[in-house]
């Protein structure tokens, strides 16, 4: 089984690292949003009044067949309004629901719009290939965790072994085993629940037999498990005075024992058949709820309700909720982040171990592949960290409403992300012996730069963000400083290593020099 662990690890390593990195960031996606969207750095309103707002939105979007608001939370204090314009395209606007003012477009996709979708789709939209690659990686992660455990008959001894002063492969393997064993249950859970969230993508044919006697099995199935409800337009004007949205919202929240709603929507505004949808938020339960009330807007009566209370559906929602971590729990949120970063370390060290143990052999054989793998590894490990930090830095540099070469500000940020990422691959390929070190220094430098730029461009420097209780901004700044320190320490260690045992890849091929020793197969990773 050892060879599967090694080879599958390499093929899937870079994919997994990228997914784990983006996933770890997604744990704090809304905090990253606050940092990247300075105009949304305020405290969520104590209470909101939908009735006054409804008229404003109806005026904003005349004739829109529907409009809705994602309600403010502590982590995302603005209301996110959507509606359809006259051409039918969906428009989104942020608003401060306390002051009733719209927030200017922040010109960024930030955490929830860019980093988070990267985590589950890799931004490859073509035929859903991105989802399938992520699914494959999740499956591989589970297979690697199981095979990794089988290799480790000495699992508990290794767990207490960490020899940082030993040669690189040994300490790398120790770190791999430590992070792997310590977070094994979490990593297995997160890979499995990731698949379960997208079960309808991975098993689209699932309901075909159980619902074989219906015309469209898939939509009947969805109606059963998601409770789809809709009512057609009456094509007649509704009453002047409709039921109060605030009352219906309060009624729903009372029915959910005080759990706030996360989303409200008005269907067919102005029509006699207009109705109001209220969805329960997952703030107070691990399980990611699908609980909805529909009210007739004219009378205020409940016309439909759905609750995902049946056992299997509830289990699926519970697993999804464990993955999404949308519930309010700061301790667990930090645990998820640490466990995610541990996953990054597990994957990166497995990757580095593979390279170091094979480099000598492959160089003797004169294989060119080793340099490509080397470049790919560096580009997908330190490279994506560099690109992410460049994304943060450029966000603080571009003025609002910037446009360049026909690209919007948000698109420019993303272009910078990809350009920098490609550059790190090229750098790793052309300077193989120095790339780890140099990119680690770049990570340290960019982290400090992003930290400084936030203070300079928004005025929310660390003292102010802490004194005003803007914890998202303060936390992000502190993480940037922390990553700068860690990267600088790593770089100094790499520097020492490189001066004590210079094994540049290019020369090594010509004149074999003492490469790091490979440990005996006491641990059969080879």
């Amino acid at each position: 089984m050892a060879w599967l662990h090694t080879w599958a690890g390499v093929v899937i390593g870079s994919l997994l690292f990228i997914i784990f990195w983006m996933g770890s960031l997604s744990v704090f996606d809304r905090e990253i949003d606050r940092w990247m969207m300075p105009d949304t750095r305020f405290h969520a309103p104590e209470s909101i009044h939908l009735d006054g707002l409804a008229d404003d939105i109806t005026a904003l979007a005349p004739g829109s067949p529907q409009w809705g608001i994602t309600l403010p939370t502590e982590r995302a204090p603005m209301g996110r309004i959507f509606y359809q314009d006259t051409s039918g395209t969906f428009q989104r606007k942020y608003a401060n629901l306390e002051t009733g003012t719209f927030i200017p477009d922040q010109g960024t996709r930030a955490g929830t719009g860019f980093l988070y979708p990267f985590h589950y789709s890799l931004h490859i939209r073509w035929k859903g290939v991105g989802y399938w690659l992520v699914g494959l990686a999740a499956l591989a992660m589970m297979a690697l965790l199981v095979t990794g455990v089988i290799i480790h008959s000495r699992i508990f001894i290794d767990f207490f072994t960490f020899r940082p002063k030993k040669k690189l492969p040994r300490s790398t393997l120790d770190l791999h085993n430590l992070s792997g064993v310590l977070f094994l249950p979490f990593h297995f859970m997160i890979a499995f629940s990731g698949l379960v969230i997208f079960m309808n993508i991975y098993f689209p044919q699932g309901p075909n037999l159980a619902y074989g006697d219906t015309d469209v099995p898939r939509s009947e199935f969805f109606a059963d498990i998601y409770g789809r409800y809709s009512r057609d337009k009456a094509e007649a004007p509704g009453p002047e005075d409709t039921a109060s949205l605030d009352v219906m919202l309060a009624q729903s929240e009372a029915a959910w024992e005080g759990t706030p709603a996360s989303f409200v929507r008005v269907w067919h505004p102005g029509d006699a058949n207009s109705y109001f949808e209220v969805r329960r938020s997952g703030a107070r339960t691990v399980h990611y709820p699908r609980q909805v009330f529909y009210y007739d807007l004219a009378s205020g009566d409940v016309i439909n309700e759905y609750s995902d209370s049946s056992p299997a559906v509830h289990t699926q929602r519970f697993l999804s909720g464990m993955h999404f971590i949308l519930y309010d729990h700061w301790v667990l949120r930090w645990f998820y982040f640490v466990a995610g970063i541990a996953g990054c370390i597990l994957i990166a060290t497995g990757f580095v171990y593979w390279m170091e143990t094979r480099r000598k052999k492959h160089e003797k054989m004169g294989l060119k592949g080793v340099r490509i793998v080397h470049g790919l590894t560096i580009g997908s490990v330190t490279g994506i960290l560099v690109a992410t930090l460049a994304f943060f830095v450029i966000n603080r540099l571009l003025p609002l409403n910037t446009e360049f070469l026909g690209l919007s500000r948000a698109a420019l940020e993303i272009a910078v992300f990809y350009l920098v990422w490609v550059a790190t691959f090229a750098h790793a390929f052309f300077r193989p012996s120095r790339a780890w070190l140099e990119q680690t220094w770049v990570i340290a430098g960019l982290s400090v730069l992003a930290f400084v730029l936030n203070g300079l461009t928004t005025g929310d420097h660390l003292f102010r963000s802490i004194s005003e209780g803007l914890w998202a901004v303060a936390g992000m700044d502190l993480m940037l400083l922390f990553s700068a320190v860690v990267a600088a320490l790593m770089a100094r260690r790499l520097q020492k290593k490189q001066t004590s045992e210079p094994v540049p890849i290019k020369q090594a091929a010509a004149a074999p020099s003492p490469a790091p020793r490979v440990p005996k197969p006491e641990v059969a990773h080879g």
Partner: protein
Amino acid sequence: MKRFFLSPAFGMVQRLVLALGGGYVLSASFVMLAGWGLAQLGMARGEAVVLSMMVGFLVFLGLILWAFAERTLVRLWVVFGGGSLVGIGLVQLVSASFAATP
């Protein structure tokens, strides 16, 4: 040519294709048939399908692990290749029963 077909690299390719391709066909057939079967046994059919889908991922994982633990390729071909055919056949058979009873 003969050397290629007996090479470990080609064995690896077969293993991967069987594990991923065959494994997927087998687990997808499992999901469809189990969902239908449980519904026949009286489970609410939405529940039956969701449960089968979740278990389906673990079935797939088990199949992949076995594909790399099993030494003989022939046995893999029998289980993944033959099993896929049986799975597809059973799915067709059940679907045909719906067509017969409108």
